[in-house]
């Protein structure tokens, strides 16, 4: 009968075996015992089973599902949530998320809806700035000054806020407040990114990366740019 001490040693070895921590010689020695010791083999199977199920318990995080598409949405499924793994994704907004592409039934209840995404040229892009610590907190269709405008808001972990406005070039909208602004155009679309409380150097880096993302529509190199931009600059303390 094995002593408690021996059993304790065996427990450690069995754990090390399932974790791949034993040397080849140690593995061989333990395998020989497993072949003839039914209790030892059972304990080994329990630990291996447990390890496999612990990993399975994390599968939701390890393989995050894509968000379901709204039934009536015309939005292309390009906002890869996947935490920040899909670093710079694009929302093709000819069409919209459910927030601004209500179903026909809903539209019937709100006949005063006057802004349509059809008022914008196709393929606006709302970049995902998650890697820079900026979470897309809201997106809406508005009409400041009567101009159809997509308004996307981002929030950082320390109260920092960015607002992105996308409208047709050649139109004018009232100037937003904020502490810094970065504007650019892509084809028929005009983009205005406004910061509230973000250090200027960081904002310039993030805005530059966001601009690249809207031009390149979320290519892998954009995510690298965004990360690099954030690395070069200070944290958001706004």
């Amino acid at each position, binding site marked *: 009968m094995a002593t408690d001490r021996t059993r304790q040693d065996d427990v450690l070895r069995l754990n090390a075996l399932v974790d791949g921590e034993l040397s080849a010689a140690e593995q061989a020695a333990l395998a020989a015992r497993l072949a003839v010791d039914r209790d030892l083999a059972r304990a080994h199977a329990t630990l291996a089973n447990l390890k496999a199920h*612990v990993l399975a318990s994390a599968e939701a995080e390890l393989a995050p599902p894509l968000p379901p598409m709204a039934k009536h949405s015309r939005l292309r499924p390009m906002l890869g949530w996947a935490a920040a793994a899909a670093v710079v994704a694009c929302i093709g907004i000819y069409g919209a998320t459910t927030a601004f592409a209500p179903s026909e039934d809903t539209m019937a209840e709100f006949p005063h809806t006057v802004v349509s995404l059809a008022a914008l040229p196709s393929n606006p892009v709302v970049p995902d700035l998650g890697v820079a610590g900026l979470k897309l907190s809201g997106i809406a269709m508005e009409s400041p000054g009567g101009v159809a405008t997509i308004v996307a808001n981002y929030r950082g972990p320390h109260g920092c806020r960015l607002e992105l406005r996308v409208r047709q070039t050649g139109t004018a909208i009232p100037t937003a407040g904020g502490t810094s602004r970065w504007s650019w155009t892509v084809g028929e679309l005009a983009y205005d990114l406004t910061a509230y409380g973000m250090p200027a150097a960081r904002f310039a880096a993030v805005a530059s990366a966001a601009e690249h993302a809207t031009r390149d529509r979320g290519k892998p190199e954009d995510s690298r740019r965004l990360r690099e931009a954030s690395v070069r600059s200070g944290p958001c303390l706004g």
Partner: protein
Amino acid sequence: MARDLHSSLPALLPRLVAFARTIVNNPESARDLVQEAVARSLAARRVPDDPSAYRAWMFRIVRNAAIDELRRNRLESTIEPMVPAVDLWRYDDAHVAKLTVEQGLAVLAPAHREIIALIDIAGFSYAEAAELLGLPDGTIMSRIARAREALLAAIDVSTIRVLKARHGH
């Protein structure tokens, strides 16, 4: 040169979130603190250039954020708890399933959840985990063994029982 130092970050994120979720036992908090950790790392002046060192560095940042979170909620325990007795040689593992493991992890002490998350979810070797936690390799070896015994004990006393699928009816 900082250009490509964070190139492995996107691939690490799922395991960072899973690691954090296992420690703080709250998916939303886990995502928030990983986001915060990423922001910290991106703003850091010195970033490890070796991939394995970078990985350990990121997990350390997330771990520190998770410990802060536990402290805020007064759930942190630096003392490894006593492990309830479980007879590994007689253990009926029919009840070890994803659901019972999740439930078991939820009631484990943070120190046990942490080592399980590091080894089984994050995939660290004992040596890597030892370095990350600032402990001897042998301590990691015994700690993971005790943590698993604690998890098996938690599953054993759980009221959840796995029903085996029945076929042929």
